[in-house]
């Protein structure tokens, strides 16, 4: 190894190390604070304790908010999976003009400011006579989750070799059976991974959800921000640590199903 190669190796390590530390700081700080005994976020914590986790049970409004968030995320992801998969099939298999436009349109909610989409929906839903907060949240969250499904399933479908279905039929499968035995298993990883990340995006959404909330219906991020404003203490870090854990689980499953490098594709 020449001197220049060795130096460039060190530079790569230094940059990589700095990036990893910088990016992980908020997550590590959250977890460390949630397990500390200090009320004032002292780091490193003077002593370890589970007191903030014990207090979670007594937090007013936490459980209802968690339930609302889980329900909205689950239902909106399920709806988006149906709508998104049908649409992805049309985009990959269909021969009609404007496919490019349709796919840009479907992914566009990811590119526009959530706040503006939220305000537009707030006024648009009012104009259409939709006043129920829970229903509005659900309708809005399908728009949040749909792009994740469409993007990933289109990617997976365009790599799928459709002649395999013909092969299965030649070998005696009926058309539905061929779909179930050949298409579904090969799409399943992309399907599950995109569903997971869509679910997380719905769970974590703040800028759209904040327009559809009332005294009874609050999603978890809305409730958390209210705690931060009212009385910031490490209990919020304990809730955050729970959400970080959820993201870790999604990442591990996603890595198993499609691999880390695939997840990083942009």
């Amino acid at each position: 190894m020449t001197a220049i190669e060795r130096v460039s190796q060190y530079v790569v390590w230094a940059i990589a190390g700095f990036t990893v530390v910088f990016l992980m700081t908020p997550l590590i700080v959250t977890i460390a604070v949630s397990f500390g005994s200090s009320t004032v976020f002292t780091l490193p914590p003077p002593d370890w304790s589970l007191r903030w986790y014990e207090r979670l049970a007594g937090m007013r409004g936490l459980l209802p908010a968690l339930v609302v968030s889980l329900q909205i995320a689950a239902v909106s992801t399920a709806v988006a999976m149906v709508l998104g998969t049908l649409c992805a099939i049309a985009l990959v298999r269909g021969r009609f003009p404007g496919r490019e436009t349709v796919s840009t349109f479907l992914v566009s909610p990811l590119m526009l400011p959530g706040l503006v989409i939220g305000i537009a929906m707030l006024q648009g839903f009012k104009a259409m006579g939709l006043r129920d907060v829970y229903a509005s949240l659900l309708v809005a969250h399908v728009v949040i989750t749909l792009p994740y499904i469409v993007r990933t399933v289109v990617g997976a479908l365009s790599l799928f070799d459709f002649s395999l279905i013909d092969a299965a039929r030649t070998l005696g499968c009926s058309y539905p059976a061929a779909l179930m035995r050949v298409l579904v298993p090969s799409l399943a990883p992309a399907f599950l991974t995109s569903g997971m990340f869509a679910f997380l995006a719905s769970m974590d959404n703040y800028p759209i959800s904040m327009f559809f909330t009332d005294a009874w219906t609050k999603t978890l991020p809305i409730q958390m921000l209210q705690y931060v404003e009212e009385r910031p203490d490490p209990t919020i870090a304990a809730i955050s640590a729970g959400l970080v854990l959820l993201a870790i689980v999604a990442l591990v499953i996603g890595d198993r199903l499609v691999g880390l490098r695939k997840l990083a594709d942009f």
Partner: protein
Amino acid sequence: MTVKSAPSPWRDPVALLAAPAVIYLLVVYAFPLLWLFMKSLTGPGGLTLQPYVSFLSDPFNWRVVGNTLRVAAWVTVVCFAIGYPAAFALARAGAVLQIVMLVSIILPLSVGAVVKAFAWQIVLRRDGIVSQTLVGLGLWDEPQRLLFTETGLVLGAANIFLPFMILPIYSVVKLIDPRLSEAGATLGATPLYRFTHVTLPLTLPGIVSGVAFVFSMSVSMFVIPSLLIGDRFQTLATLTGRSFLLMRNEQLGSTTAVILLVLAVSIVVGSTWVARRIGGNQA
């Protein structure tokens, strides 16, 4: 009409499968956005630009626009300064280091902004990590509070948006053949010349899309400034949110929302156009 046997492109039955999703988005997403846009342009006497004229004639609002663009520009600069070398490190790292880097880039992406912004509230305190580190390194004489300062906001936002700079640049860096640069060296090019004439042009498409992502997200961020800098510092997004949620001033909110929308759309369209031109030059 010569080829009668060919089915009309509009009659492809598979296309109908896209209908539910498209109709859904048209009704609950495109229509509301259009409605917001139209409403901001109509006054009691028909078509008007009055709300925009009165918005821009208030010097306070110019400060808000200035705050928004200045913070977004700084966040983009910081993200680029860290993200560009990081993308190269990610592409050139060994297997284990690459996995560690990928995890630290993807994991924060699946955690919400509220969680991360709250964590930065802790990091930026007077007794927080940043302050302690800088004092420890001897760069600061005494601990300082970065929370509720513009520097703190830029640092926190840059941290949250950094993955959106690294990933698009990484996606082009990993395609570059390292032998290109070696070939340049063999032909006698200096490292600087090789960088500006080989590496930089090849990574430009990634830079354009990374910069566009980060800038447009920084312009419209809402939770991060509310937690890291507070109400005294207003950006277009926080002003929009406040005018709907607190001030009940829907007119002002709609005006600023449309300005944000136009900004975001022009960044997306503009960056796509630039990326296409760069791609065209190389081909």
